[in-house]
């Protein structure tokens, strides 16, 4: 009875530990995109994964970094062990302690420390900074594995080699290294595993255009989980599992005498295998790189854009047509982007911030004027949009509009049986628990201030207080303040009303035709995201080529169809074949809508602080 209980307990623990991974692995072979429904076995997520350029790129970066950092760490760590083994015991213990601390230190602390160090030294984050950080955190693992082997080794062996006529270098490579090879090998494998495994340190030290599998997964899942991710994660899990298995059950120096020669043989083979695998991977990677870059490569362009904000094919077309290699990176919020650019943590050539952020960047002197001689395609951009852009770029010198839209209400006709034309419906108790709000200060206050008839850029404290009270009083009937989930929830009929951007609305309508979108009569926000070139850009010509390319009508059309946000490119609009969309009031509202909308202005630090202050009151208020 007791033993049954114990076994059951063990079973629960194993289940608890491995269930999530098991689910993930099963999902990676599931033909259905929807978790929980099994539609049959398939490998096509794996195929998709291998055909996905971004993922393969990340895979390559991961392997290169893992191999390089493991190799460098193994060399450095082994040399350190040779010295450490000769030290006095007390000194050695102190040194071993010091090398062990980074292993136990909270990873986030190490990561931040690295980032601060690099930025403090004025080193832009890049491939090398990731590599340096990885080498550093791998060295302790090498020491951990190699030092005991060095100490176990009879020190006379090295001397015996000298005695037999070997020079110190020959003795080291012919005797010492092979004798401690099991330790070196497991140190290398462990470093390799740790490097592949790492997310936090990579995330904080990576430069523009550098993505490893883990940081790539992190960026991708923010946009929604694709089944390729299951495939990738499964591969990652299996790889790490195998590596750890090799580390723990690999060649052991202590084996029974009888099987010694056999193990030795196996060890030799395994050693050869490990080396050849490394060689194959390295040759493969660089061969691939050579093939890929064989085109008329003329330079690099580092692009920083919102997630899911471009048709990936456009990037490929740009590379093919211009010969520039695009390093494409994504951000999630304007503020995140600002910190990176302002602190010069990573350097980009061309960025796509929103209106108010462009204003803020201008105020901080972070942008450089665009040479419009290089952007002949600007003629396709509607004059009224350039006019609106003057709200943040008064002379139209710094920014080329890319996408625009309004903030409005999306509602489900099956749940809302009345005409929607005012923000007031969001405060109607009838819809208790069926309202979704945007979890961003400005959008939340846009709703309240517009409803109250104030400017959405107000700095009047009374007006802000009033708006705050309104939001606080509304909170009990709000289902949630959300960032990304509006789409899914509305499509799945999980809410009746939501504050949403017009671009999202078009997509949502395609998925669920009960959904409607309106810009309330009280007015709202019109936003414009545009391409700007930062001051510390490395390749201005490339940046301008990029902007010009995106303004080409056929390209702008591809992006419009992919992103579904309104395009300011009138020639592109003219090319739209679907009449419904071409004339959609959501995508291209008439001027009456635009005229009642305002852009967000940059409010200055004090203004931001004021909004943030009131926003925390809303955040802290009782919900239901």
């Amino acid at each position, binding site marked *: 009875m007791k033993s049954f209980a114990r076994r059951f307990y063990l079973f629960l623990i194993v289940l608890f530990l491995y269930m999530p991974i098991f689910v993930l692995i099963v999902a990676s072979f599931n033909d259905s995109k929807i978790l929980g429904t099994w539609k049959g076995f398939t490998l096509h997520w794996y195929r998709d994964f291998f055909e996905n350029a971004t993922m393969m790129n990340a895979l390559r970066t991961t392997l290169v970094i893992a191999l390089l950092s493991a190799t460098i760490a193994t060399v450095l760590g082994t040399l350190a062990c040779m010295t450490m083994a000769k030290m006095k015991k007390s000194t050695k213990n102190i040194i071993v302690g010091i090398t062990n601390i980074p292993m136990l230190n909270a990873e986030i602390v190490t990561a931040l420390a690295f980032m601060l160090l690099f930025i403090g030294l004025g080193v832009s984050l890049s491939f090398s900074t990731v590599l340096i950080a990885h080498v550093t955190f791998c060295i302790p693992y090498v020491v951990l594995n190699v030092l005991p082997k060095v100490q176990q080794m*009879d020190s*006379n*062996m090295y*001397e*015996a*080699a*000298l*005695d*037999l*006529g*070997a*020079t*110190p270098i*020959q003795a080291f490579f*012919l*005797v010492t290294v*092979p*004798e401690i*090879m099991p330790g070196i090998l497991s140190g290398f494998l462990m470093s390799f595993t740790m490097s592949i495994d790492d997310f936090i340190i990579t995330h904080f030290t990576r430069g523009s255009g550098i993505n490893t599998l883990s940081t790539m997964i992190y960026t991708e899942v923010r946009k929604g989980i694709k089944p390729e991710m299951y495939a990738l994660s499964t591969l990652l899990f299996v790889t790490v599992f195998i590596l750890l298995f090799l580390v723990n059950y690999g060649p052991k*120096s202590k084996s029974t*005498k*009888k099987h*010694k*020669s056999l193990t*030795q043989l196996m060890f030799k083979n395994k050693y050869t295998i490990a080396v050849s695998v490394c060689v194959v991977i390295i040759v493969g990677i660089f061969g691939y790189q050579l093939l890929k870059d064989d085109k008329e490569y003329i330079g690099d362009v580092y692009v920083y854009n919102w997630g899911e904000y471009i048709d990936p094919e456009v990037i490929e077309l740009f590379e093919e047509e211009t010969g520039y290699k695009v390093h494409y990176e994504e951000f999630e919020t304007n503020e995140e982007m600002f910190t990176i650019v302002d602190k010069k943590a990573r350097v980009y050539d061309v960025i796509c911030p929103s209106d108010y952020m462009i204003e803020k960047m201008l105020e901080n002197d972070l942008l450089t004027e665009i040479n419009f001689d290089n952007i002949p395609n600007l003629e396709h951009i509607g004059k009224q949009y350039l006019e609106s852009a003057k709200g943040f770029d008064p002379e139209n010198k710094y920014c080329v509009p890319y996408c625009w839209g309004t903030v409005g209400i999306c509602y489900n006709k099956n749940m809302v049986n009345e005409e929607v034309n005012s923000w007031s419906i969001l405060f109607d108790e009838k819809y208790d628990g069926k309202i979704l709000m945007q979890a961003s200060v400005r959008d939340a206050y846009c709703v309240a201030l517009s409803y109250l008839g104030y400017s959405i850029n107000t700095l009047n404290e009374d007006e802000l207080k009033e708006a705050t009270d309104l939001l606080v009083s509304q909170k009990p009937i709000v289902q949630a303040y959300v960032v990304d989930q509006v789409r899914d929830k509305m499509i799945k009929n999980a809410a009746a009303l939501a504050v949403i951007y017009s671009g999202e609305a078009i997509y949502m309508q395609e998925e669920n035709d009960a959904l409607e979108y309106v810009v309330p009569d009280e007015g709202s926000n019109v936003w414009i995201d545009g391409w700007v070139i930062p001051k510390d850009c490395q390749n201005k010509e490339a940046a301008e080529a990029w902007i010009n390319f995106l303004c080409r009508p056929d390209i702008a059309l591809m992006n419009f169809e992919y992103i579904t946000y309104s395009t300011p490119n009138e020639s592109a609009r003219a090319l739209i074949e679907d009449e419904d969309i071409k004339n959609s009031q959501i995508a291209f509202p008439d001027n009456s809508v635009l005229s009642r909308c305002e852009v967000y202005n940059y409010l200055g630090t004090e203004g931001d602080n004021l909004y943030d202050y009131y926003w925390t009151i809303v955040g802290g208020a009782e919900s239901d």
Partner: protein
Amino acid sequence: MGNKLIDLQGISKSYGKHMVLDDLNLYIRENEFLTLLGPSGCGKTTTLRIIGGFEKPDKGRVVFDGQDITNLPPNKRHLNTVFQKYALFTHLTIAENIAFGLKIKNKPKAYIDDKIKYALKLVNLDGFENRMADSLSGGQQQRIAIARAIVNEPKVLLLDEPLGALDLKLRQDMQYELIRLKNELGITFVFVTHDQEEALTMSDTIVVMNQGYIQQVGTPEKIYNEPENAFVADFIGDSNIIPGTMIEDELVEFLNAKFKCVDKGFGNNTPVDVVIRPEDVELVAPEKGIIQGTVTHLIFKGVHYEMEVMANGFEWLVQSTKMWPVGTKVGIKVDPFNIQIMNKPESEDEEAVGVDE
């Protein structure tokens, strides 16, 4: 035996404040089997490592075949070492171990193969080519270590307590084996041991060391029969060492009794140490002895009995083929030829202390 092959001149060596060797002078002749004998920690290994080139002396010179090699690294010296723990390369096969030195010297493959065969035959381990080092027993590893060294045709083979880790039977076999090897190869052996029996069995010359000083150099017979000081006497075999006074030439007094001896030239009434080997003590009826005592212990040792006799406040160690039961009153007699007189140590350094084996 030939000329001086190795000459250690005024060698001193310290580790930190610890002086291990102090002004050591020693020469080794060609084709000699020389043994460094002494308790552990006395500096034998250090001396050997200085000859091998693994340590540099703080002072003094190492001369090899007339050339100063004090600063020559080990890989340039024409001698090879068999290390205390063999130091076989565990990642290599036996054949690869033996071939190591030859490969470094880029010898042709056929030559190397011949040498491996020859060396394995010499150490009675033919057919072991493809075994791994640590699948072998201690004695076998020992012999491989020797094989690995001698294929390089060194002029001198340095062996550091090579038999220390072996059990008694194996040890005795290996002793004969080593002597045979030495004769077959016709090279110089410098052998380190703390086992006096081993040293007496194998050596042409024994160097007795203590605390970094040479106590006595000589043939085994000389060292055994005529120890120059109490340390040597005590360390080589069992001895009764008794403080006494040299009354005059050929007469010594100890334990309140006067004994005839054959030593001369110590002066009159000089304090000395008297050494008497246990097999040289004669037990007789009480009235026939010079002094009287009582048997306190008795052990049968195979070829003889070993007894302890309490007489005049000293516990005598006695070996005899005749058995005297415990409690028997006995008399003690010593033939004048078997009484060995030694000067008292002049300095503290020379004093025999710290025999921990």
